[in-house]
């Protein structure tokens, strides 16, 4: 190994309860993968490699939420061996779709799915990584956006603040030149309260945003809900629309509870 190789920063990718999609995003960077592999040492990435480079790691990307006692232990280890820890995707930043258990009785959930739920070791709640250990940066999305992932990695390499703004999807929607589906089609859209990053994908496909990047920096869900009701959404519809991939993010939780209270 040359001296240059030795000094390459070490990247690790970790998985907790998740669908693998966010770490797959890294392998989906077809044009950047080989340059990336020569810029950083991919020291731990089980999905892609059997090689296990020793820690500590300069940058750990963590996918998935914490749902088992063992994982609660394991994430502490990951934090210890990581200089920077960046969580990627709604599971890791908000508990993910599996956090819907938080609104139910997880024992009952287990009983629905498994004949012998007593074999299942699981926590009552699906928690984001930041609920267990300090996190240096959270990259949102279900799944994360490829360009944003590259931006976070290059920003960490360059020592700058990642350009991952907290504003609404509408900013990207307008920049992209989409027609507003909410105004022009009467389609309910969570874009005004959802953080940008996807490039305003859904409106580009004539669909309302369903909030997969979680809440913006200052979401006014009360005002949006009033408008969504005018567009014909019922309170149970509103509860469901906020309870998907980022259900336990505080503003979405409040918005769903508000609708539930009114229901």
């Amino acid at each position, binding site marked *: 190994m040359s001296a240059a190789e030795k000094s390459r920063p070490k990247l690790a990718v970790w998985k907790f309860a998740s669908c693998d999609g966010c770490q797959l995003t890294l392998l989906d960077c077809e044009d*950047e993968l080989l*340059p*990336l592999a020569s*810029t950083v040492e991919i020291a731990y990435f089980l999905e892609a490699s059997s090689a296990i480079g020793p820690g500590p790691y300069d940058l750990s990307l963590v996918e998935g939420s914490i749902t088992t006692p063992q994982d609660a232990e394991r994430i502490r280890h990951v934090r210890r061996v990581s200089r920077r820890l960046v969580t990627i995707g709604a599971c890791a930043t908000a508990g993910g779709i599996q956090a819907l258990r938080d609104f139910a009785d997880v024992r009952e959930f287990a009983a629905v799915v498994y004949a012998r739920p007593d074999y299942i070791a699981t926590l009552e709640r699906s928690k984001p990584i930041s609920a267990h250990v300090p996190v240096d940066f959270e990259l949102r999305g279900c799944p994360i956006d490829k360009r944003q992932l*590259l*931006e976070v*990695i*290059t*920003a960490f*390499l*360059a020592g*700058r603040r990642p*350009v991952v*703004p*907290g*504003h*609404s999807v*509408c*900013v990207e929607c*307008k*920049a*992209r*030149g*989409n*027609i*507003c589906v*909410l*105004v*022009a*089609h*009467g389609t309910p*859209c969570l*874009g*005004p*309260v959802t953080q940008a990053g996807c490039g305003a994908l859904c409106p580009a496909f*004539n669909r309302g945003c369903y909030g997969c990047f979680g809440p*913006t*920096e*200052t*979401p*006014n869900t*009360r*005002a*949006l809900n*009033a*408008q969504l009701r005018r567009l014909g959404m019922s309170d149970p519809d509103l509860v469901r629309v906020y309870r998907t991939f980022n259900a336990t993010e505080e503003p979405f939780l409040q918005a769903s509870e508000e609708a539930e209270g009114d229901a």
Partner: protein
Amino acid sequence: MDVVVLQSLEPLIEALTSSGYTVVGPRVEDGAIRMAEISSGADLPAGVGDVQKPGRYRLTSGDDGMVFGFAASPDSAKRYTQPPRQTLVRVRDEAIEEVEQEAPRVALLGLRACDLAAVAVQDRVFAGGRHPDPAYLRRREALFLVAVNCAVPGGTCFCVSMGTGPKAVAGFDLAITELASPHRFLVETGSERGGEIVALIPHHPATSVDIDAAEEVSRTAASRMGRQVDTDGIQEWLPAAHDSPRWADVASRCLSCTNCTMVCPTCFCSTVEDVTDLTGQVTERSERWDSCFTLDFSEVSGSHVRSSGLARYRQWLTHKFATWYDQFGTSGCVGCGRCITWCPTGIDVTEELACIR
């Protein structure tokens, strides 16, 4: 100024195309009349109209065959004068290179008087001050502006109040008034290159009947304005009303979503971002549309000057209608009504201003 009559727009579109312009004009797409590339008169929205209300836009269809029988499109000239993102410089190793920005030759067909006023406002921002932007000037130079005098103002328009319409009086290369029975187009020439285009196509001179009919179109339009703003003394009274209780009221309805600023044809705020490649060898700096409704916009020393939605709405409205005069000598608002139509919760600036006053 030459005034001529065309029977059809087809030759005009052809002449523009053959003169090297990409023609961008009104066209039905995704349930709205967009400004999109058109290749023939058949792409124009014949018989299509629109109904615009606060937070609501719907197409209507009729059989009058008029191709400009609608009000402001969601798109303005801004996308062409100030593209949503432009790369400014590239830094490679030790060299800082200025990136040559594109200045595509585009003919914008169907801009309204308010849109022309908006272009003039942007001219002051980007070309008028102490630091003129040469790329902006090149882009502007490459734009051929074909205005259309409004026949049916939208439900959210108020250009008469702002003194910007409905008739286009300056700033165009050509200005069209669509006339009915018989269907024809009165074309005024506003520039030398406008005249050169007209010379390329079959036309006959306008008669006084044509000219009167066109006057009538603009007169009727002016009388059917959807909304109005009392701008008298607004430069003083609006900033002075910074503690009006109405701000809290509107803030409760405002999403801080930025739509009003994004659709506004004059809003020019931008931010600059660095993108590095993986090796760290090449950096690109680009400028992109930003909005005073975002939190980062006013970030100083780890906090945000305008952290409340109230302050951000107040900044927007006050800047647009009042402090813009202090900075650029004109109003920032041209009365096109886009911010009213495209606000998802239907906040109406004219109503807010009336309440604040």
